């Protein structure tokens, strides 16, 4: 089974700092890639997704992610974070042709005002 790796489980940064969360997966075939966000006390929400086309994907709230096939990576970035970005972020991978998602262990991000 494919695995999804997210490093640096806890990230603490100040407002206006830049954020980058790494995501690497182990499957070598065609994949669909996702980042989900879970704000405190809320349900999981889709932040952005990659299926095909431009490997630089823009999502909601100023987030973007870049798919680098040669590195099996799908890193999430935001140039300037806000206090409201405090949340847990999950990378997920779907093998093309089925309906299952494999999730990483998540990054707990805390933004200090």
């Amino acid at each position, binding site marked *: 089974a494919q695995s999804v790796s997210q490093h640096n489980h806890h990230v603490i940064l100040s407002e206006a700092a830049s954020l980058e969360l790494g995501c690497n997966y182990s499957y070598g075939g065609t994949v669909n890639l996702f980042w989900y966000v879970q704000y405190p006390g809320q*349900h999981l*929400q889709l932040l952005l997704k990659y299926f095909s086309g431009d490997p630089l994907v823009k999502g909601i709230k100023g987030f973007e992610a870049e798919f680098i096939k040669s590195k099996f990576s799908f890193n999430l970035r935001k140039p300037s974070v806000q206090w409201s970005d405090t949340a847990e972020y999950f990378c997920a991978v779907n093998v093309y042709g089925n309906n299952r*998602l494999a*999730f990483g262990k998540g990054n707990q991000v805390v933004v200090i005002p």
Partner: protein
Amino acid sequence: DVKVTQSSRYLVKRTGEKVFLECVQDMDHENMFWYRQDPGLGLRLIYFSYDVKMKEKGDIPEGYSVSREKKERFSLILESASTNQTSMYLCASIIGGVLNENQPQHFGDGTRLSIL
């Protein structure tokens, strides 16, 4: 908008009890999923169902069973609850047989289950 509803936000049960977690979706989705979410472990798939009365084991099915008698409802059952099943449980659904760009998984709000 798709709505996935889990019957309880918080639930406290005792060791050895039989526990039912209920999930209902309102968009006629064929596929439904149960995950558990634990700190530092992310979301792990317990069971999923791709049609009424059909089910398949996910990555961590031990200690759980499921029931899908109606298309809109997918139940997770803990036959004899144990303390290591204390967790956040998430239900999700999607339409059709495979994920595509316009059909992401929709998640419920989660049930935080504590086994004492």
